């Protein structure tokens, strides 16, 4: 019986999905309005076509649209979903510190993040791939393969050697990419002997290039320092993806594949609520948790305590103590983006 119910629900949803191809979606919405139907999906789709940028909404409108979404998601995923609209807390500036000495490259953070933040999951039919906000780059220890046999080699080639070598033979053997690593490693066991790991995600820049290039101000820095995205206002032009120096932004190329059983019902409007196709998303320091004083999912899951998070304005916070005492650096400082994501070693 329950199964039958599910199938029926699914097919109706599938129908609506197909119908939501723009004009048709509006029609479905109009029909729902006219007939007084309480189909939350159609109502939400209809209302979202005309809704303002989140920042310009009054508190009343924010609440309304969150409620509308709660209804829609609850119906769609078959469980009670909450959509939070908690604003930034006063006196809080979030910062993150990552100990690259401790990181073992297990990628538990990657998967915890996907689970927590309702990213699109891999689909067996190849219609959707998993979107991951954290990528862990595997760096070869030493980075260069120095070779005794190449001592006499290089440019110019042997016969011109009497004038001296200009480029040594060992110059050609580095991996040759900017971060000189790769993020597709599939180890049997971590940590690997010959590697160290360099996780990368949104750096929540104080001077974010992605925000500057956004033509519709759908992405902006909130007062607590987190760069957020209004998924309902994004036009999908991907300027931000072109401008981000840290490759932190991901695009929903297809319709996100989020099975109901995997859906995390505790969401935030600017955070982990389910996204639609054609919009950009990225790490937001788990707003749905951090704005309630909780740690982010990646911090909670890290087995070696390599990840630290806290209020940069509070001199007693863990992250501030690290900045004060450890050897700290930021990535790509020449971009002048002032990231609030710090790397450190003990």
């Amino acid at each position, binding site marked *: 019986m329950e199964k039958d119910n599910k199938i029926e629900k699914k097919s109706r949803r599938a129908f609506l999905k*197909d119908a939501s*191809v*723009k004009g048709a979606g509006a029609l479905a919405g109009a029909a729902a309005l006219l007939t007084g139907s309480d189909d939350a999906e159609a109502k939400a789709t209809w209302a979202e*076509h005309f809704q303002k*940028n989140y920042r*310009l909404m009054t508190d009343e409108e924010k609440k309304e649209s969150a409620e509308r979404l709660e209804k829609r998601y609850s119906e769609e995923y078959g469980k009670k979903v909450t959509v939070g609209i908690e604003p930034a807390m006063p006196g809080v500036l979030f910062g993150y510190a990552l100990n690259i000495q401790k990181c073992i490259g297990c990628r538990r953070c990657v998967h915890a993040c996907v689970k927590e933040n309702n990213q699109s999951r891999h689909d067996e039919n190849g*219609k*959707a791939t998993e979107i991951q906000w954290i*990528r862990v*780059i595997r760096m070869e220890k030493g980075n260069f393969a120095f070779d005794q046999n190449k001592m006499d080699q290089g440019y110019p080639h042997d016969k011109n050697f009497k004038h001296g070598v200009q480029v040594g033979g060992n110059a050609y053997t580095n991996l*040759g*990419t*900017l*971060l*000189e*690593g*790769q*993020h597709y490693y599939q180890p049997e066991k971590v940590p690997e002997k010959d590697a160290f790991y360099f996780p*990368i995600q949104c750096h929540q820049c104080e001077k974010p*290039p992605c925000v*500057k*290039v*956004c*033509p*519709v*101000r*759908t992405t902006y820095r909130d007062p607590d320092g987190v760069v957020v995205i209004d998924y309902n*206002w*994004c*036009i*999908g*032009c*991907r*300027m931000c*993806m*072109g*401008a*981000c*120096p*840290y*490759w932190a*932004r*991901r*695009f*929903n*190329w*297809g*319709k996100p594949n989020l099975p109901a059983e995997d859906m995390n019902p505790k969401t935030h409007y600017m955070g982990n609520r389910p996204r639609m*196709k*054609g*919009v*950009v998303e990225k790490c937001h320091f788990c707003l749905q948790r951090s704005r309630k004083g909780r740690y982010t999912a990646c911090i909670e899951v890290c087995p070696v305590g390599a990840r630290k998070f806290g209020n940069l304005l509070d001199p007693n916070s863990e992250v501030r103590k690290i900045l004060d005492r450890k050897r700290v650096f930021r990535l790509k400082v020449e*971009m002048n983006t002032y990231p609030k994501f710090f790397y450190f070693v003990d």
Partner: protein
Amino acid sequence: MKMVNFATDFLCYALKGGSKFYTWLLFLGFFIMIWAYGNYTQISQGMIVTGLNDQVSWGLYMSNFVFLVGVAAAAVTIVFPAYVYNYKPLKDVVIIGEMLAISAVIMCILFVLSHMGRPDRLWHIMPVIGILNWPNSMLTWDVIVLNVYLGLNVVCGFYYMYKKYTGEPVNKVFYMTLVYVSIVWALSIHTVTGFLLNTMPTRPMWFHSMVPIKFIVTAFSAGPAFIILAFFIIRKNTKLEIKDEAINMLSTIITFCLSISLFLTLCEIVTELYPSTEHSFSLKYLLFGKHGLSGLVGFFWASLAMNIIAFILLINPRTRKNHAILPYTCAILFVGIWIEKGMAFVLPGMTPSPIGEFAEYTPSWIEIGNSLGAWAIGLAIFTILAKGAIGIQLGDVKYSEVKGEQYEK
């Protein structure tokens, strides 16, 4: 009332033609149908039907957009000599240039719509009803300059034609002000499109102050090349007289601009490859291939070869003024610069990714179909607009009160 007559007479003339004309439109119609199907698929399934991915998130659509902004700007190569230097042979055909600008901007808009993940939210980027992140976002500058340029050309072109149609004199102050504004504006559209790309230090290959100037000189090569081809076709198929001097003037402009463009290509290669820092990786990937990926290498060298062949044929006055050779030169140049803008500039800029990953992008068939279709729509619009404009220029389409009276009786 005159306005309505103008519109109907213009359209009637523009849409009436011989079998060649209809075959051409039918041919374009085929691609427009592919475009409609492709866009339907893309809107219903999402951008996943394209070959784009998180590593290379801009592709064929953006490449064509950048190229066509140049074609639109190139109308100025007719307008400028015609009005600033009062060059009579070009003055007679200035209207064709304006019609080309209109068609090219419409193509730009079609490519932007295909590029957007959410075309249904287009209104978000419109002034007043949406939110424009102006002056911070270069894309908002581009939206503004392109739309104003479209408006300027529509007003200039159709005002001139309307006056010619009714036989009234042109209001010189009004018309010439718009013409001068549109000359400067044409430069601005490609400059801003250059800024759109070269203000991203994340993509070192684009992060180069020479990008806007190179955009302009390549545009002023490819654009007039297209116009010359159109002139040859118009000369062959209509009674409109296009003087040899007009064509020679344009080919001289191409020669100048193409030589600067080739020089800038040399400057770029030397500047990047001599120190050979990490920032040269995109260019190395383009020129020689890197990390076993070499999808764009052939395109780059083909485009360079085409540009050089065209340059040799243009720099020599005998081959430049030989109108049996010139159409081929222009065709080679047009294709060469199209490749240069897309496969040799927009695409390699996305490789490697900001964290150093080399990923190669191949457009999907949907993308190719949508691009061909957008070109077909633009060419169809240009054909119809140009045909109407020729009718007006020839005096075939004229306002006559007699006709009106006859109807009343």
